[in-house]
């Protein structure tokens, strides 16, 4: 039995956020038809060779699903004893939903807080305010130990506001993404992040209390196998990549082919550099001189057989990658 991570993409949103580059859809009338399609897709998948280690309901806004829809969806998912996450928005979370989540086995909740400043939230076009965000954290904590929040930094004219202490005590995991567009990843602003030391930076954009690192995301970052269901979802199985097209109701599976050795190595370096555990030296043979130069400039350090980016290096990971591949 091989370990497998399972991703479900639920693209529906009340409103589209300008900064989000995930596939989303605001026509909520298509929700039932979509759920029918995704459940059919899940049922058609052969889970027998796998042991499912994590399930992740991402979006979109998965918390738009009613308790019944959630139960219906989980009825066709295989058994999982590991991490089961759902992404929620502060304004669409309720006690009834939390109850349903717990019933189906969800044990991790990821709240799209984005900011602890009302002006910033308005600027981002979010439908909630700080009060609602704090209420959502409190509500989620009544049902779940493992609560994660998402924040956005480097927003022009809106400095990052650190979570209030009382909310922070309830939170186990924080993702802080820099507001960038993919085609302009070189931006000058890079706000420093000040979090209590109990939150360690285990990936360039992710901070967690020990033991609460995201199992599911680590599968992506360490080259594990995963299957994605729903429009726009990606899969990596037996070194073979697939993805579903973006057509909400008529998405099809597209074969992206088997990764060659070079691609595997380049991906390992890209993903490894982002992690606190770094990249195995065995991936970097022939790059000893480059590593030494980068080391002398304080951009990486070598610990045992791993090359790890320093805080300084984490700011210019693309450059490190370009030097190391």
């Amino acid at each position: 039995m091989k370990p497998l991570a399972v991703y479900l993409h639920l693209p529906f949103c009340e409103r589209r956020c300008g900064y989000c580059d995930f596939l989303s859809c605001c026509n909520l009338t298509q929700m039932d038809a979509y759920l029918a399609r995704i459940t059919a897709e899940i049922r058609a998948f052969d889970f027998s060779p796998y042991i499912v280690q994590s399930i992740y309901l991402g979006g979109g806004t998965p918390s738009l699903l009613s308790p019944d829809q959630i139960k219906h969806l989980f009825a066709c998912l295989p058994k999982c004893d590991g991490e089961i996450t759902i992404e929620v928005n502060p304004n669409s979370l309720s006690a009834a939903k939390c109850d349903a989540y717990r019933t189906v086995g969800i044990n991790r909740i990821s709240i799209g807080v984005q900011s602890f400043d009302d002006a910033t939230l308005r600027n981002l076009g979010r439908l909630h305010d700080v009060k609602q965000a704090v209420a959502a954290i409190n509500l989620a904590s009544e049902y779940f130990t493992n609560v994660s929040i998402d924040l956005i930094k480097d927003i022009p004219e809106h400095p990052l506001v650190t979570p209030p202490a009382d909310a922070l005590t309830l939170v186990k995991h924080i993702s802080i993404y820099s507001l960038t567009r993919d085609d302009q990843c070189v931006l000058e602003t890079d706000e420093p992040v000040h979090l209590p030391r109990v939150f360690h930076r285990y990936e360039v954009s992710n901070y967690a209390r020990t033991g609460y690192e995201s199992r599911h995301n680590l599968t992506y970052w360490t080259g594990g196998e995963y299957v994605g269901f729903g429009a726009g979802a990606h899969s990596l199985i037996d070194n073979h990549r697939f993805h579903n097209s973006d057509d909400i109701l008529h998405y099809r599976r597209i074969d992206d082919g088997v990764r060659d050795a070079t691609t595997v190595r380049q991906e390992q370096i890209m993903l490894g550099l982002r992690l606190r555990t770094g990249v195995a030296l065995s991936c970097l043979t022939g790059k000893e001189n480059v590593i030494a130069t980068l080391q002398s400039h304080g951009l990486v350090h070598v610990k045992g057989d791993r090359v790890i980016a320093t805080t300084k290096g984490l700011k210019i990971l693309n450059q490190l990658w370009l030097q190391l591949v």
Partner: protein
Amino acid sequence: MKHTRNFCIVAHIDHGKSTLADRLLEITHTVAPRDMSAQLLDSMELERERGITIKLTPTRMKYTYRGEEYILNLIDTPGHVDFTYEVSRSLKACEGAILIVDATQGVEAQTLSNAYLALDNGLTVIPVINKVDLPAANVEQVRADIEQVIGISAGLAPAISAKTGLNVEQVLEQIIELLPAPTGDLDAPLKALLFDCYYNNFLGAVCLIRIFDGVVKVGDRIKMLATGKEFEVTEVGVFTPKQTPIERLTAGEVGYLCASIKTVNEIKIGDTITEAARPCAALPGYKEVLPVVFTGIYPVAGDKYGELKDALDKLKLNDASLEFTKETSTALGFGFRVGFLGLLHMEIITERLEREFNLDIITTAPSVNYIVHKTDGSVVNVANPSNLPKAVDIEYFEEPIVNLKMWTPPEYIGPLMDLATEKRGVFVDMQHIDERRTALNFRIPLNEIVYDFFDRLKSCSRGYASLDYEPAGYARAKLVKLDILLNGKICDALSIIVHEDAAYKKGKALAEKLKEVIPRQMFEVPIQAAIGGKVIARETVKALRKDVLAKCYGGDITRKMKLLEKQKEGKKKMRMLGTVEVPSEAFVEILKI
């Protein structure tokens, strides 16, 4: 032969040569309307994009006039001053020239020089007034202009619009009525002028020829008089405008021949082609054109040196004026020192290398040929700043001087005088050609006009002034070598030779420009400009503060990798100079200072 006319179209740039050529092709049904595209003869991608003609293109057209069918051979020519030599080549293959004058702009510098070029070559010139459909057209004024400025009769000049086709038939009629038919002896030994040539991967060199005497057909044994090489003809034909093989080409005709000519050294543009067994006397041939501007051209990737050499060889094949020799730079590795006729010529060649041969290249600052007198009494020629002897060993420099002639409407005399003086020009005299046109004569160092002079001249005369120059020997000058240091190391590819008085200003400008074009890197990069070890300017490229992909989840790793691949592609265009990455555009940008 009496039903053949060979002619070219000459004009100032942008007066409508290629558009008229299009109309002629249409009216003579040479090209079916469905195959017609604008500026058909400008087949080079670069020609279409810039709307200029660079290469000669001969085309055979058929036209029935008063019940008799005529063969009209048109040779399209470039209009820019840098390519005057191409024009003079095509003139040698014709009996007549159509001189186009823009009805809104009148006689311009290149109208004048091309008209005289044609008259000097003994051609019959037919003036044509174009763009009469434009509201600003002043046909009668332009008619008077042509008579007064050029001195040829323009009373019969057709007033046409090449764009709409208005009165274009009149042009065809005048070609037949007014131009002389070619003469020649069919039975004499073959005497053909090789006026241009291009390279075809399958056929080898395709020679564009004008036959003066005799006949040439497949299987003939031919001889090139200048190189002495002999070949067997494998194909003869004409351009319709597609390359179309025919049985034979006879005296008076224009066409092409192929003879399995594989290397550049075997032929020479301007040469006379004759029969191997029965050679004729040589035609006068062409005035050798000498390059005046030199730059280093290097491949961005060192392993592309061989490809660069092949590409230059192929370009040389149809650009007789291109000269190159091997050169080595500490910063850039192996490359070539290439000689050009001017800056536009240089730009065209570098762009063709990049587009047609898909090469990424670096061009160093243009230079001229200096004579350096050393303290030990010896004399060396230097066209590459990095070959300059040490400053302490130099007694003095001599630099090439040119006689510069600028034509301008009188209102721009002031700004042009200032420009030439700023560039160390010495005023010689001024001639009033007529009330609209004045010629300014200066003696000026060549290296002052190879950088941005032409652009400056155009901008301070709103495009009206034009220039021409001819070598006028050498003169002693106070010159120094200006070095650029990146991260403390001299970068030889960026060194230039400048006049002592301009060195400080130029050094500062260079350092500032480099700061703009060198992207931020992982480490801070100091840029210094220095003369003989003394730093005169300093700038710093700050270290990159942030370059990282924001998020990497949802499993879509391929997309992130694509973004990184894009960055990697961009990096390929960078050249490592020591530890500093310099984009190849940096070398182009600094030329503009």
